[in-house]
């Protein structure tokens, strides 16, 4: 049981080595092996959460070297909770996307594909469990590298998007590393908890301030925070369907988690609010991002690009929560991490399902889909309602607590922007629902896509389109139900996990 912190990421990393080898021998087993790896990690995450709640924070010294010499893994309530979200959502998404992976990738490359996915997940969970600043950088780069590759394989248009993503992402990682360097030379330690103890003495130095700014700039880039968001829409739009439903709900969220970790575990209380104006900057950029993302999403015609801009806006909401830097705001941000993971994976999976089933990705061609793909669209609708923030769906509650946090701080800008963003979200999502449910199906479809992914070759008429298979839509329904369940039982999550985690 004491090994749990290391089991979560290591299982994924080990399986990422095994799957390509397995793929060489017996291609059919690759998916099962991947799922098995993620499943073990999911179970470990749940066990870790349970153990944290009963026994308190888990510590693990990697390789038996005690900190500060060795690397320490720390799993507290928040880390366990984020691990559970990552592994569970990816488990469901993987099941749902199996058919598309087979469709989208050549036979022999499925092993490589799943290896990259596992590497990505291993990196992400690693970021969550590590208690070491430099180790976080390594995991950040592991996950980013696999994400670059996964985006890149999305076909002709994805290539340039993937390359740009690589350049921008590497700059982000390098900024972070540079910031860590400043912190290290000021304190002499890389261990987060020790840095927290040593930083007060080093507070005044300009080096630490520069370090804080660089760390947040780097993570902001990875997170797609306005104005560092420009890589994100291209990357999400052109990535293969099976990839964007995985990286969009999880990847940027983990960067947000890393930011939160800086507030909770690295910088002493009040440091980022009073001495370096990082928190204020986060709030302001977040508010701009919420408005910008929603407005930009409303003007998109491609569903994936629309959802990508929507992600920018939702991530900005999390950034606002982190920037407000009160326990309630942290709770709101953490709640939105799970909410957005569930909502965005549902939306992206539904969009991908439509694309693979009917070959459509332009919203104005969605007419009649409500009738031909009822289950998929029902899940989409539920997620959309939650995105708008109608109670008692999950999306309402993150906004609800965020507004309260804003009011507590007397920050009316937060209240107004968060409330208005609901309306803006309704604008672009109801545009989709209107098409799907209220317009009659067209029999001849106008030219839809110009990219040369294999799927766009399949172009059936919407009216005759069929619902996707059960293994595709079942995870979708589970996620959609989860959206309501999280909303209704949000107090359970908050009281047991989040409040102890952020105090």
């Amino acid at each position, binding site marked *: 049981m004491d090994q749990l912190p290391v089991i979560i990421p290591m299982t994924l990393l080990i399986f990422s080595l095994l799957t390509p080898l397995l793929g060489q021998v017996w291609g059919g087993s690759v998916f099962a092996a991947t799922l098995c790896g993620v499943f073990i990690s999911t179970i470990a995450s749940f066990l870790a959460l349970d153990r944290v709640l009963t026994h308190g924070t888990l510590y693990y010294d990697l390789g038996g070297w005690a900190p500060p010499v060795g690397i320490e893994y720390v799993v507290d309530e928040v880390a366990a909770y984020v691990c559970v979200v990552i592994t569970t959502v990816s488990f469901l998404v993987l099941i749902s996307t199996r058919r598309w992976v087979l469709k989208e990738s050549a036979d022999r490359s499925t092993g490589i594909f799943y290896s990259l996915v596992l590497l990505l997940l291993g990196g992400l969970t690693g970021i969550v469990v590590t208690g070491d600043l430099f180790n976080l950088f390594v995991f950040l780069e592991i996950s980013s590298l696999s994400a670059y590759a996964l985006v890149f394989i999305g076909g002709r248009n994805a290539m340039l998007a993937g390359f740009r993503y690589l350049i921008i992402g590497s700059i982000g990682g390098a900024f972070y590393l540079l910031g860590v360097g400043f912190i290290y030379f000021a304190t002499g330690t890389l261990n987060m908890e020790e840095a927290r103890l040593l930083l007060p003495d080093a507070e005044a130095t300009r080096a630490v301030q520069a370090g804080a700014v660089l760390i947040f700039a780097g993570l902001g880039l990875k997170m797609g925070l306005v104005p560092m968001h420009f890589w994100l829409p291209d990357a999400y739009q052109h990535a293969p369907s099976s990839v964007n439903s995985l990286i969009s709900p999880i990847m940027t969220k983990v960067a947000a988690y890393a930011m939160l970790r800086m507030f909770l575990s690295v910088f002493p209380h009040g440091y980022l609010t009073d001495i370096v104006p990082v928190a204020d900057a986060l709030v302001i950029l977040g508010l701009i991002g919420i408005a910008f993302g929603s407005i930009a999403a409303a003007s998109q015609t491609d569903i994936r690009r629309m959802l990508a801009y929507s992600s920018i806006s939702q991530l900005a909401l999390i950034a606002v929560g982190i920037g407000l830097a009160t326990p309630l705001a942290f709770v709101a941000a953490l709640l939105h991490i799970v909410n957005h993971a569930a909502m965005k994976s549902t939306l992206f999976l539904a969009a991908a399902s439509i694309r693979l089933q009917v070959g459509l990705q332009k919203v104005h061609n969605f007419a009649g889909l409500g009738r031909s793909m009822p289950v998929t669209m029902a899940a989409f609708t539920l997620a959309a*309602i939650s995105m*708008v923030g*109608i*109670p*008692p769906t999950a999306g*309402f*509650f993150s*906004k*609800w*607590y965020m*507004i*309260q946090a804003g*009011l*507590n701080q007397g920050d009316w800008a937060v*209240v107004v922007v968060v*409330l*208005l963003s*609901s*309306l803006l979200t*309704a604008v672009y999502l*109801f545009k989709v629902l*209107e098409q799907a*449910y*209220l*317009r*009659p199906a067209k029999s001849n479809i106008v030219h839809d896509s110009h990219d040369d992914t294999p799927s766009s070759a399949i172009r059936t008429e919407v009216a005759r389109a069929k619902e996707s298979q059960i293994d595709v839509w079942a995870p979708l329904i589970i996620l959609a139900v989860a959206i309501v369940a999280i909303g*209704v*039982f*949000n*107090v359970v999550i*908050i*009281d047991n996990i989040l409040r102890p985690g952020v105090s």
Partner: protein
Amino acid sequence: MNEIFSSPLPLIAVLIPVGAAMLIALTTSRHPNLRDSWSTVAAILLVVVVLLMLNETRQGRLAQMTIIELSPGIDIALRADPAGMIFGGLASGLWILAGVYAVGYMRGGNEHKQTRFFSAFALSISAAIGVALAENLLTFVLFYELLTLSTYPLVTHRETEEAIVAGRKYLTYTLSGGLLLIGATAWMHVLGIDATFSAGGFLHQAGLNQATQWGLFGMLALGVGVKAAVMPLHSWLPSAMVAPTPVSALLHAVAVVKAGVFGIVRVMVFVFGSALLQEMGAWIVVAVMSGATIVIGSTLALRHDNLKRRLAYSTISHLSYIVLGVALLGPIALTGALLHIVGHGVTKITLFFVAGAIHVRTHKDNVSELDGIGRQMPITMGAFTLASLSMAGIPPFVLFTSKMYLGWGAAEVGQQVFLAVYLVSGVLSAGYLFPIILRAFMRTSPDHTRYGEADMRMVMPLAITGVLALVLGVLPDFPFHFYNLAHAVADSASGLNSTIVGGVQ
């Protein structure tokens, strides 16, 4: 005085229509008769449950159900207090009739996607009952938003360009209103106020400064004012008339707009309370706005030839009767306002039913086309005549009773201006409705087509509601004890002793 007991009845009342919606969706259009019978069965069950709760409420025992803690410190909870029972009784009682009527209308008009229509219809009723029984502000907001959402498919049912545009407008208005309510609710929570409705209000105990009071009042009043269609927030309502007539009838004469008006009652009587509003002077703002809406709405109704649009403006005007009655802050005016919720619901639903019956039978939508229709559809137009007399406030119809109270209430608090507003608007109501009756009965039809009465499923409900407009005027306590309830609410709101009192003292 009054006692609160835990009972699952309020939750059952909310869940019955949800169950009906699910059964309707599962039955689908393969078994239309079975599907359409679910609504009726559920409506009857709902009325039984409401009557059971009502029986307790009248004895001062309020059924209460706490469902779950929705946010730390705030429960989602339902309570059958007298004010809620007025709205709940009205909505559930009229659902039976509207449900039967809707079947006749949808089948008669050969409408598409009937399964979706009836499911959403039942869900809207559920949300309306939830609005009625909400025990605190957050629960109210939750059902208020769900009401918006579940009526959206009804407004856009026709799926024409016009319907889609109307749907967008509807969502924009009502969602914005909902956001203001959410903001205000969060604000109260942050201020540490327990937003459980209580007759006479609770905010005066909180010791807030003036700016906060006005801020909260502005957000709450605007938030519910949107659905109450107080000018200038009204323009979604005439657009939403593009919906099929049963929707206009039940939802835009009863459930949705009455939820807005009921929200005004909750905000002004159960959140702020008359003492605080008097002190703030906030009532005068609401009174002037609603007074203006009454006159302007009635005047605009005169100008519209389309029957449903005319009725829509009439609705806008009459909703503000209620808002004004509440804003006058007197117990008599409040009694009148609550009775007007009921009376206007029964009366206006008749008028809409008639408009729908004429549409299905003759495809005529404009007043100018209705020459001689009275001789061809005597029962229908007879009901229309009864309802029109009620609208104009002729004794002994139901709206005479409520208007009498409203006017009396205005005089009681020394606001003769508003008494004049009520009187003028009564004349205007006659002005936009009586010419229709004259046309229908006195003139002869220009075309030679002989139209008979519409389907029985449509004629029966409209005849019943038409007669009810008369019966409730004579026997206001039949069968839901509306008069007693209204009186009890008014008494408890002004702190008088009474046999039954709403909310916790």
